[in-house]
């Protein structure tokens, strides 16, 4: 597998990896007894203006280690493979990120808006989000 561990100033260690190899890496880190990352703490998405970054925050309950894996996503066609079949807890996280950032998770069983109302226009946590919804009342939605 092709990945690098990067240590930046004033930050935590991150493994940058391409979105194609993400599932493979997570499976490896989860099932290999040497690492044993058995819990996905959370998934964090960040809007970096020109692209999105998706950080997977892994945690091992046996060793207490935390490990962060980062995927950079193209802003124009944001697609990341879903990790729901590896960590079931990822489902809500992925829905939330889809809702707030508009990143599509391929093969997610039922990707839907989670926090915002159904039929909301736009993705609020994007930096260029402006509320463009001109419809007035809820009954019109």
């Amino acid at each position, binding site marked *: 597998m092709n990945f690098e561990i990067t240590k930046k100033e004033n930050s935590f260690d991150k493994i940058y990896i391409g979105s194609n190899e993400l599932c493979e890496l997570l499976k490896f880190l989860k099932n290999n007894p040497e690492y044993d990352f058995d819990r996905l703490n959370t998934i*964090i998405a960040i809007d970096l203006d020109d692209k999105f970054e998706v950080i997977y925050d892994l945690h091992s309950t046996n060793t207490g280690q935390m490990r962060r894996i980062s995927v950079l996503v193209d802003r124009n066609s944001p697609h990341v493979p879903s990790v729901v079949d590896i960590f079931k807890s990822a489902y809500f996280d992925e829905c939330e990120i889809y809702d707030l950032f508009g990143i599509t998770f391929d093969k997610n069983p039922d990707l839907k808006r989670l926090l915002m109302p159904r039929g909301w226009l736009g993705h609020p946590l994007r930096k260029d989000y402006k509320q463009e919804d001109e419809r007035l009342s809820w009954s019109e939605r």
Partner: protein
Amino acid sequence: MQTNNKLKINIGPQHPSTHGVLRFVLELDGEIIKSCEPVIGYLHRGMEKMAESRTYLQYLPTVDRVDYLGGFFNSYAFCNAVENLAQIEVSKRSRYIRVLTLEMNRLSSHLLWLGSYLLDMGATSPLFYTLRDREVLLSLFEELTGQRLMYNYYTFGGVRHDVWADWLKKVADFVEIMPRKIQDYEDIITNNPIFATRTKDIGILSKHKALQYSITGPNLRASGIDLDSRKDANNLIYDELDFETKIAHSGDSFDRYMVRIEEMRECLKIISQCVNWLMGNEGDVISPVKQPTLKVPEGEFISNVEAPRGICSCYVKSDGSGKPYRVKWRTGSYYAVQLLPKLLEGTFYPDMMAIFGSLDVIAPEVDR
């Protein structure tokens, strides 16, 4: 609705037992739950979006609202992240004060949980008993911070002001009488046969499932996994204190209840140790930082804290300006709500409250 002999029923958004504004769409076959779909977002206040348009100090008072029963925990998670990014030193005395208030907060949160859980099961009296004891804690918080729920007491580099001997004395008095009260709760609840039959072997959460669904806090410890992020929290002084992490093994509702009861006792231990240390030692409680114009260097940090409802993580990314670039909250209840349908399938409808209540979910923490 009637074609497949299943009854679709809406629990919430307004319902006496959803602890806020949650909604579940249940499919019932007789009294057996066939499926459950949680619908969240009714309390979404955009905490994460709000951070992007406010300075660090302006955002600080609002973070207590992420989880209104554990305001100190959210406040600590955010302060800790910012302190790590901006390299601000926190004095030892203020760390002790933080641990003291955190544990008092955990105790008050568990007390309210206990009362409302029993209320969900139909027993009204324990609610009043626990509220009576929680009232003492809230009065102490009010005296210290001026607020009963949204404290805004922690700040970057410490706490806003020192505690005083008189207040510590009151806390010590409270710690002295509290164990007897907890014993009272045990007497009327733990040994109650109806309570036992309603909670034992109900909603069993296996180790594997708990990890798969990223459950943390007392819910995970009730399943037999010894995970307590207090032990490896480097920024607090838990390593200097003597306390145990209580775990249970069967992972049913009764164990989740027992873990919380035992945790309340451990809280008292920690509180009394903190009070003793604070009475015997002097020191500064706040670092000299220009807070209103605080500029945080570029970087990112995740801080974890063991909140009453599981690990509360706060991710802060700074771009060097006066405002956070991105803040992300990870809370325990969010994952508990996700787990709930798996625990409910095939159980009886009245069990729903015994399971849902034992997970200790509160809605604002789910929706943020």
